């Protein structure tokens, strides 16, 4: 089979019907990975040109207009392509494709897979793909809300793209670090959603507020002073 034939088959109702027999996510991925067409595509994807074609196709399918009454008919195909790319391609290619796929409407399997791949890309520092369009930290993170819940909520909203652009130049990795630090130290002022990180391993101090540029040393000192005394004592402890 040629690459075109394989991709046409993967985008057919027949392929979708076979892999959609799964009762859950794990079964779906098992069926997908065991499917002959996915094996054949993975074999061809050892060539860089094929990987590029698959990544390109992910972007095309993700941008297609669909009938919003129904599930995206390319859901299974997108998942198959992401699976092959995640097994064969460089992390930045995977991250870019996953981010494109995350924007595809009304997907069921692809939304979870793309979220995982994007999250993995951020967590491992592969955040070269543009991801500033929806980054922010939930306001609840700055209050005394449950940290774990806030972070989960923030990620869900971030991934779902329901929050407007406010971040500026802050990268996903910085956000993740800030979230982890906030969770570990609870060193966050109450008034707004300003994130104040303690000195990093490199001795750098970072203060960041969604929608604003990185703060100067003076601004940081002012912001840090606004942190309630007991919070700072708790953080030092």
């Amino acid at each position, binding site marked *: 089979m040629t690459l075109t034939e394989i991709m046409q088959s993967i985008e057919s109702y027949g392929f979708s019907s076979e892999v*959609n027999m799964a009762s859950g996510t794990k079964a779906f991925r098992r069926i997908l990975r065991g499917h002959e067409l996915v094996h054949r595509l993975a074999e061809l994807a050892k060539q860089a040109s094929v990987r590029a074609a698959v990544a390109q196709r992910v972007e095309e399918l993700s941008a297609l207009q669909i*009938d919003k009454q*129904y599930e995206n008919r390319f859901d299974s195909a997108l998942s198959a392509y992401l699976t092959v790319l995640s097994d064969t391609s460089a992390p930045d290619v995977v991250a870019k494709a996953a981010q494109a796929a995350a924007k595809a409407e009304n997907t069921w399997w692809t939304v*979870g897979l793309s979220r995982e791949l994007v999250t993995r890309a951020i967590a491992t520092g592969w955040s070269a793909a543009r991801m500033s369009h929806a980054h922010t930290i939930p306001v609840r993170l700055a209050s005394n809300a449950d940290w774990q819940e806030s972070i989960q909520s923030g990620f869900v909203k971030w991934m779902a793209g329901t929050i407007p652009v406010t971040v500026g130049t802050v990268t996903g990795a910085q956000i993740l670090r800030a979230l982890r630090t906030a969770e570990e130290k609870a060193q966050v002022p109450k008034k707004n959603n300003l994130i104040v990180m303690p000195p990093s391993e490199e001795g750098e101090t970072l203060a960041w507020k969604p929608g604003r540029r990185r703060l100067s040393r003076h601004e940081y000192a002012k912001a840090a002073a606004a942190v309630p005394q007991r919070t700072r004592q708790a953080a030092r402890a």
Partner: protein
Amino acid sequence: MAVIIGLGNETDNTALALATSKGARIPNSRRGELAPEQMREAVRIVMQNHAKCILRSMSSVYNCFGMAFAGRRTCIEPEHVPMILQEGGYVEVAQPAAVMTGDIVIYEYDGEISHVAVVISNTPDLTNGRSNMLVMSQWGSHGEYLHDYRDVHLSFGRPVRFYSERRGI
């Protein structure tokens, strides 16, 4: 397998507020309907390989666990089933002959829960001493079928246990 942060919990706007009889929250997520032509193709493939199955309904909003435990409204991942059985007051029915209408059959694939069906009838097969059990289950996103409890798609594995929520048994 990686955990998808927040999927199916109370922050997921596709989830229903669903709980066991003891009040434990059941993570879930509602799926969209397949387009009619896609559903027809799916049903054709099922019927082609399982000719004795009887199609009951064509919806992809729920999966088999959503059919059995959530009134056909949403999808539930199989890893939540042990909690649902425990918190929902289900008890295992050890003998197939003791299984009654309304009880459920749990299937496993490679040691993991993969499918569930609701029992419609259970009669003895006098020729071999086994059970003739007619069940009803949702097959992936491909609709709901009436079928023999052993006649299922390969990915569902095989029937391993029976449970009932009947009280006083």
